[in-house]
């Protein structure tokens, strides 16, 4: 198997990428190639022009600002996993990345590539939903920034338009201390998840929920936040009843079905994993409180 013919471009600067995108309508951006290359090998995708981003050094960075963690689109998954700032500021990201493919694919795979591909069960898309990410989209002579709800359009579909490139992903990071958990089920470790659930939370001095975010992916075509539950949970004590309520909310998401996994099974996993994730995040918050 090999890709259909294309004209190859390997620009070294963002400005040159955007000029090429503007010039060639039938083009694709090649990031880490861990999703696009398989699709090209299968000839699901046959772009006339392939614009390789691997020489664009200015797209690979991790910047920790007050309140945000910004990633250049070409930052490799392995680089994020090993970054001391991310390990310290955003440990849930490290847990999520441990489920992303395998060491060989993380060595090439990028955060921008994964998010542009927008697989419904991709861990990095879940992280973007959980952290109310903002997405910087660039085109020749223009740039715009979208929030997660504007960016996420549907199954493998984002708001990125022809001629546009995802340049930066900004996660809104939480101030420590907070509790967190990432729970996933896949048929084998490193496979795409069938369902994944992530939780961030803080508790008040009396042990009630102060702030909470829950993102469920692999169930609907895009990662879903449990907004209704998050609002209702504030001020409540996080015990069995609250975990159960979260689980029921997750189970209420309208689930996809495909040849391998039924909607009923996805719903079951959403319920079980949400309960577990919330319970674990609470326990983690409490254990760090005591130290």
């Amino acid at each position, binding site marked *: *198997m090999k890709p259909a013919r294309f004209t190859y471009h390997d620009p070294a600067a963002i400005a040159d990428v955007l000029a090429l995108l503007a010039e060639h309508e039938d083009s694709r951006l090649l990031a880490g190639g861990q999703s696009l290359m398989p699709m090209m*090998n299968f000839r699901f995708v046959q772009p006339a022009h392939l614009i390789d981003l691997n020489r664009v050094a200015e797209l690979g960075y991790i910047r920790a600002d007050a309140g945000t963690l910004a990633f250049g689109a070409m930052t490799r998954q392995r680089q994020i996993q090993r970054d001391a700032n991310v390990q310290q500021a955003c440990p849930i990201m490290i847990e999520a990345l441990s489920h992303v493919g395998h060491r060989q*694919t993380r060595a090439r795979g990028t955060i921008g590539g994964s998010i542009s591909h927008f697989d419904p069960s991709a861990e990095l898309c879940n992280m973007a939903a959980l952290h109310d990410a903002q997405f910087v989209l660039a085109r020749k002579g223009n740039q715009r920034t979208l929030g997660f709800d504007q960016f996420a359009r549907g199954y493998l579909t984002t708001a990125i338009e022809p001629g546009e490139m995802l340049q930066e992903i900004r996660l809104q990071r939480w101030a420590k201390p907070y509790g967190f958990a990432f729970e996933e089920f896949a048929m084998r*470790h490193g496979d795409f998840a069938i369902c994944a659930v992530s939780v961030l939370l803080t508790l008040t001095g009396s042990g009630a929920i102060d702030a909470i975010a829950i993102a469920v992916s692999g169930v609907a075509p895009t990662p879903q936040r449990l907004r209704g539950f998050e609002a209702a949970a504030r001020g409540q004590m996080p015990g069995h009843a609250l975990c159960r309520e979260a689980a029921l909310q997750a189970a209420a998401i309208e689930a996809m079905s495909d040849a391998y996994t039924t909607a009923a099974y996805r719903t079951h996993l959403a319920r079980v994993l949400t309960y577990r994730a919330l319970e674990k995040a609470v326990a983690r918050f409490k254990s760090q409180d005591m130290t």
Partner: protein
Amino acid sequence: MSDTRNISVVVNGKSYQRTVDTRRTLGDFLRLDLGLTGTHFGCEHGVCGACTVRVDGTAVRSCLMLAVQANGKSVQTVEGMAEGDILTPLQTAFRDRHALQCGFCTPGILMTMAEFLEENPAPSEADVRDALSGNLCRCTGYQNIVDAVLQTADTLRKTRDAA
């Protein structure tokens, strides 16, 4: 009409200049253009790991990289491991522990585990299994591969201690 580029790649310490189709994958370049058929293609879509080679030291899927992307880089394949008849400690452990049967997946596993052991000289069994998760083997059931990797770590540790 094909789109071609002149590339210069160092493979196993030897420099090669070739003109390649830009759609040529790195794995096909190694096998078809250079005749280095030790690198095996299994699935050609990044799932099986048989085609894993090291590019500037990093273990990657050669079916998911274009040859043109290796321009100016240094590639190591399974042919670059042993020196003549002298196997590396990892290869020796694979032989001693019967960590291969048909051998089709073995080159990719050796490339992956060589990188892994350089980064994790004292791995646990769980670490090895995690690192091995990107390589499929249909013969062994993995146990002997895990044993061989752990034995290699042990051998290398003793060698270091003795030095």
